[in-house]
C-alpha cells in the first residue's frame, strides 16, 4: 500500500502547505481515490495535529498553519470529492452570540472542526438568536457551536436555545458551547448538549455529538 497518505499526514502536521498540495496531486495521479486521500491523509493528519495540541506539543499558530496546509490539499480534492463521495460528516453551524464581537476562539474551533471533516457554516460574531434559527432552518446542521467571551453575553446562549425551542427546531440539532467564562455546569443549566473547554476538545465533542467514530 502507498505510503503517500502517511506523508501527507506528516507534512500536514508540519504545516507544509506546498508539500501537502503536491502530495495530494501525486496520490491522485497514482490512482488513490479522493475519499481515501481525504480520510487517510488529510483528516488523519489533522487528527495528529489535534492530538499534538491536546498533548501540549503544538502552539496555537502551528495548529492554524496546519489547518491552512489542509486547505491546500482540500482545494485540490474538493471538486473531485463532489463527484465521487460526500466529504462532509455533517454540517456544523458556528457563531459568537449576540452582543459579543470576539471571534478568536470561535475561529480556532471552526478551523479544527473543519479539519475533522465537518462542513462549517460560519455565521461570524454578534449573531442574533434569529440568525441561528434561520441557519438551522436553511442548512439543517447536525450541530450548532456557540461561543461567548463575556459573562454579560453568555446569557444569549440560553436565549438562542429558547428561540430554537420556540421554532420547534431544538430536537433536530445538537448544541455545544464554549468560551472563557463558560463551565460545563452552566452548559447543562441552559440546556446545551455539551461544553468544550478548548478547540481540540471541541473536535472530540463534535464527533461524539455527531455519532462519528474516527476511521483511519
Amino acid at each position, binding site marked *: 500500500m502507498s505510503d503517500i497518505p502517511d506523508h501527507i499526514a506528516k507534512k500536514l502536521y508540519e504545516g507544509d502547505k506546498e508539500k501537502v498540495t503536491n502530495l495530494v496531486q501525486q496520490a491522485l495521479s497514482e490512482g488513490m481515490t479522493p475519499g481515501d486521500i481525504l480520510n487517510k491523509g488529510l483528516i488523519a493528519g489533522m487528527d495528529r495535529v489535534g492530538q499534538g495540541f491536546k498533548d*501540549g506539543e503544538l502552539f496555537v499558530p502551528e495548529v492554524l498553519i496546519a489547518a491552512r496546509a489542509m486547505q491546500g490539499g482540500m482545494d485540490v480534492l474538493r471538486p473531485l470529492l463532489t463527484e465521487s463521495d460526500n466529504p462532509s460528516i455533517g454540517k456544523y453551524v458556528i457563531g459568537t452570540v449576540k*452582543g459579543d464581537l470576539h471571534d478568536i476562539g470561535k475561529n480556532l474551533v471552526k478551523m479544527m472542526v473543519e479539519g475533522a471533516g465537518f462542513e462549517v457554516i460560519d455565521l461570524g460574531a454578534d449573531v442574533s438568536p434569529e440568525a441561528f434559527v434561520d441557519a438551522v432552518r436553511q442548512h439543517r446542521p447536525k450541530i450548532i457551536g456557540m461561543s461567548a467571551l463575556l459573562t454579560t453575553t453568555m446569557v444569549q446562549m440560553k436565549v438562542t436555545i429558547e428561540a430554537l425551542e420556540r421554532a420547534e427546531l431544538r430536537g433536530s440539532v445538537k448544541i455545544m458551547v464554549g468560551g472563557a467564562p463558560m463551565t460545563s455546569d452552566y452548559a447543562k443549566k441552559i440546556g446545551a448538549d455539551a461544553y468544550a473547554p478548548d478547540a481540540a476538545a471541541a473536535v472530540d465533542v463534535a464527533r461524539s455529538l455527531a455519532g462519528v467514530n474516527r476511521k483511519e
Partner: protein
Amino acid sequence: MDKEKWKAILKEKTNKIHLISPAYRGNIPVVATSGESLAETWENAMIGLYLYGCEIRTQYDAKDDQGNFIDPPSRDCTTLMSIENPTAEPMIHLGGIPGGFEDLEEYVQEVRDGIKDHWVRNSLDPEDTRWQYTYHERLFRYELPLSEYDRYLCQLSQEEKQKFYRNETAHFLLDHDYVQVVEKEIKGKKQNFVRINQIQYLIDKLSQQPYTRQAQAITWQPYMDTDIYDPACLQSMWFRILADEKGKSFLNMNIRFRSRDAYDASFMNCFAFIHVMEYVAEEVGKRTGEEIRIGRFVDESDSFHIYGKRLKDFEIRFLQNLINRDFAGRTFSRKDAEPYFKERRKKLKERFGT
C-alpha cells in the same frame, strides 16, 4: 518535566529574571525581567511569574451553583519587563498568540489604526452592548463630557489664558487641532464631548521638545470606568527621546497596565504597542526631519497573572516547549509571519475598507 533541562534553562536566564520582592506577609511579589527582544523578555516574564507569583482569586474565576470556586486561583505578581531592542528578531513568541498570526495582525490594526473603533458602544446608551472601549479609541479619541467650565475657558482672551496657565504659549485644550467637540445623542438626549487625539498631542510635544517628560497618554475615564464591569487594562503610555553617544535619537516607551492576562493577552499587547511606538517615531521623524530610532520599551503590570483555569495549559504547552525546543523553535520573525499578516490585511481591507 525534565528537571535537569529546567535547571539549565533557569541558569541560562538567571541574570534576566529577578525577584525584587517575594510573596510573604500579604505582599504581592514583584518581578523584573529583561531581554534583547520582545519574545525573549516576554518568555522571561512568564517564567518569573510562574516561579515567583502568588496565588490569588480573580473576579472571573468560575463558581458552581453553591458558590464554590471551580477554577484554581490565579498566579499573580507585579511585573516589569525591560525590552532592550523591541524590534529585534525573532520578535514573535509562538506561545503568546492564542489567535495565530492573522489575528495578531488584526489586533495591531485594532490598536494602531482603530479598525474596530466603531464597535465601541455609545456611552449614553445603556442598551448598547458593543465593546466598552478599544485602546485606539482611548488613545486616539479619548473622550470627556464637555462642561460649562470648558466653554467658559474657551472664551477667554489669549492674555487671560496665559495668566491662567502661567505660560506664555498657553492654549486652552479646545484651541488645539488634536481636539474636537463631538455631539452624541440617544433617545433625544444630547451631550457634547471633547475628543482628544492624545497620540497626536505627544507627537507634537516630542517634535517640539524631544526631552519632554509630558509626552504621555492615558486611558482611564473616571466618570465611566469606576462603574463598568471590565474597564480598560492599559492605563498609560509615556515616551521620551534620548540621543546615543553618536548623536542618534532613540524613542523610549513606558507603558503601564493595571491588570494583565499574561498568558493570553500580554504578548499581543506588547506587539501592538511596539507598532504604535514605530508610528510615533516615524511621525516625530517627519516633523523634525531627523530619523528617530526605536529605543528600549519598559512594560509594567500591576497585576500580571495567569488565570487558574489556564495554568494547566501553561504547564503542558509553554513549559514543555520551553524545555523541548530551542529558542528558534519557540519563536517566529515578523518576516516569516508576513505571508499570514498579508492575507489578513487583504481580508480586513474587504471587511473594513482599511
